[in-house]
């Protein structure tokens, strides 16, 4: 057999090209497929759901060894346990015999990379946990089912939903998600230290109401206690959350849902200027990580820790000082705080199947109806006003102290490509305290980078 160089080269080029043409099939999904999938739920009979098995994707971790087959959510002590127990409860109690299993693996930092890979492989789970800010990336591409039909089929509605939760579920007037919580930044307070500094009145902390007061209180606190007045982690884009809260308190979000960027503005300058001042005055520490800030707070070395709703129960149970969780301080014109929402969405499947879509919707509706079971062991805010005002919720530790956050939530914008834009914004503003970039220059850079990212 004679093998010429030409033949070898021809084969080397032809085979990959042949493979390539087979790989370049048309895209899946599409708005039409999404609409058809949504409509297919309407004709599903309850009997069609019997014994169906569906998969769910979420990032709360796999602690099934800890919870086993437990179905009592009051026994959960963190997000992972609460979510896994709720899964058990759904499997045990749904009247159709639907079984949901978690497609495990990714933790939250790499969750959306895994979700994107699953969509690219056309094998997304039947139902997916998704932050409200990530929904447009998928809904705009026709990869998520519109859920009006699903809402009707499962007997849930937006009438008993807080305004931020409703905004989280809807994109341009179409329901794409079933929200199960709002989560936001809070002030976690060491009341003992605050009292020592004379910053407690009627058992409540006296929080600053202006940038100047914030700096004065910090000085007073440090003189009285010798400890750190305020702390937050500088990783996980947390400074962005504080920046966006301060901007929202001046009337406008950093980016609107229409994609208008409000960063290089007087409000942005005041917000970033304040953060920069707090760092340069030694009030906040630009080197503190999430873990270090949390540890310092729990060790009793910090007066106010800015962290989320998700740690309320943990701090309440473990802090050996008088702990209080309350709203993020309003230091500008109006209340406003960074917030997001965990929702469930239903991906369009290549093998569209009405009963499976409906089964996924039953799971999402179950989670919505059990938002209090999710809120109580974690600290997140329920999405139903009827639950927020219920005695059961308000009697739980700390909940009454930060109930206003449910209304003051400034949700992360719902625009396509948000994650890249948020990273770009964080990178630009952190230059102020990490590399000495002037505030004006950092804001101009952030405005430019975020616009470029959202345009791309």
């Amino acid at each position, binding site marked *: 057999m004679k093998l010429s160089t030409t033949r070898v080269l021809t084969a080397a080029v032809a085979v990959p090209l042949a*493979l390539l043409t087979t790989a370049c099939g048309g895209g899946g999904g599409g708005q039409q497929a999404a609409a058809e999938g949504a409509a297919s739920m309407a004709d599903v009979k309850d009997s069609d759901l019997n014994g169906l098995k569906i998969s769910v994707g979420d990032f709360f971790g796999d602690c099934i060894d800890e919870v086993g087959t437990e179905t009592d959510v009051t026994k959960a002590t963190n997000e992972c346990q609460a979510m896994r127990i709720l899964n058990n409860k759904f499997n045990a109690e749904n009247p159709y015999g639907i079984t949901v299993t978690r497609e495990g693996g990714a933790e939250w930092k790499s969750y*959306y990379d895994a979700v*994107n890979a699953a969509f*690219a492989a*056309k094998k997304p789970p039947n139902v997916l946990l998704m932050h409200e800010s990530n929904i447009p990336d*998928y809904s705009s591409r026709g990869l998520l089912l519109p859920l009006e039909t699903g809402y009707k089929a499962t007997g849930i509605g937006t009438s008993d939903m807080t305004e931020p939760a409703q905004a989280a579920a809807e994109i341009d007037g179409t329901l794409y998600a079933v929200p199960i919580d709002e989560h936001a930044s809070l002030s976690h307070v060491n009341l003992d230290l605050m009292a020592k500094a004379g910053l407690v009145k009627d058992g409540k902390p006296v929080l600053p109401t202006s940038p100047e007061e914030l700096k004065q209180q910090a000085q007073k606190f440090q003189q009285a206690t010798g400890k750190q007045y305020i702390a937050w982690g500088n990783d996980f884009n947390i400074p962005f959350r504080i920046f966006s809260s301060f901007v929202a308190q001046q009337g406008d979000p950093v980016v609107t849902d229409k994609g208008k960027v409000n960063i290089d503005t007087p409000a942005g300058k005041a917000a970033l200027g304040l953060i920069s001042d707090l760092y340069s005055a030694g009030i906040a520490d*630009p*080197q503190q990580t999430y873990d270090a800030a949390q540890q310092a707070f729990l060790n009793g070395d910090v007066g106010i820790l800015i962290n989320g709703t998700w740690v309320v129960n943990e701090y309440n149970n473990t802090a050996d000082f008088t702990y209080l969780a309350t709203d993020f301080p309003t230091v500008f014109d109006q209340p406003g705080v960074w917030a997001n929402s965990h929702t469930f969405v239903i991906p369009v499947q290549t093998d569209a199947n009405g009963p499976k879509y409906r089964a996924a919707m039953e799971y999402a509706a179950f989670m919505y109806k059990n938002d209090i079971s999710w809120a109580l062991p974690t600290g997140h805010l329920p999405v139903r006003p009827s639950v927020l005002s219920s005695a059961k919720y308000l009697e739980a530790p700390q909940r009454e102290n930060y109930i206003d956050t449910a209304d003051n939530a400034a949700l992360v914008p719902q625009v396509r490509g948000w994650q*890249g834009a948020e990273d770009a914004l964080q990178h630009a503003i952190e230059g102020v305290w990490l590399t000495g970039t002037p505030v004006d220059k950092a804001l101009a850079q952030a405005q430019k980078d975020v616009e470029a990212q959202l345009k791309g």
Partner: protein
Amino acid sequence: MSQASAIRRRSRTGDTRAALLFLLPFSVLALVFILYPVVQALYMGFFDWDLLTQRAQNFGLQNYVTMLGGHGFVWSATHMLTWRVPLLVVAAVVAVGALRGRGRPLRAGVVVLLLLGLVVALGFHPGPQGSWNDPRFWAALQHTIEFTVISTPLLLALGLAMALAVNRPGRAASWYRGAFFLPYVLPVSVVTLIWIYLYNPSRGLFASVTSAFGVEPIDYLNSSALAIPAVVLTTVWWTVGFNMVLFVAGLQDIEPSLYEAASLDGAGRVQSFLNITLPGLRRVMLLVLVTQVVASFQVFGQIYLMTRGGPGDSSLVLIQHIYQSGIRDSDLGYASAMSIVLLVLILAVSLVQLRFFKEDDA
């Protein structure tokens, strides 16, 4: 005669078949997992190719224009001096060497011209009103090259030094060989976890040591000047053991009688090293150099886990930009175009290295 010829023909045919049989498994794997993805990336780079929907549209060169284009360029003598001055020094060294009759004058001339061209080209940059279409690509490219230029000589020199130190019989040398190689077997997640703790400004070992001398703790991974050097140090600790093993193998291939002969001729250790060891290691050196440069150009895991490309974009590298464009932003077309540019860059550098070593061999 004709019978002998027939036997030779049959033998050759048999050899060819055996060779093909042995080559087949690797060829198939290389075709499917190397050549096919390269061709696919080349193809995808000409489209707006969406990861999530796998839809391709707008055939053209727009991804390359976005990546490489910009507007409002100016030239200044002082731009990127930290790169241009060393390049000028190298050009001067090559030119002086050629004038003194070392090496081939034609090759030296080409090298000097190329270096001078690069020095001039690096003077161009966007002016006050101008900008690159994708400034992050250029920042990432710059950091990738910086990482490669800093890490490669270190890994080469340290690997060789460690090989020379442990290339001797005995249990102790064997133990050290194992100890030096051990970090290489660790996954990137473990290595970065260890070093993140070491670099921690509040609790890390480095902070404790510097504090003992009255130096304020430094947040290495959040410093735009120190983030890349900190990752380089981590990488050196992690991978230098592999180079050491290659150099040890190379050292053991050198005929011991050469050293004996040199010793009898009165050669000292330095002379033996320069005239026997280094020439004897030429091929291993080439292997280490090429693989190291290729690996350094593809640095990602350490950077992503330790600095996430920060602070700002001060440690962003090309693979991270490709990863974020392709996976986070779903822009697979642009990510593919960048991958192709990186491939061309790596190929060009590798070919230059191979060419120079080959010519030196000749």
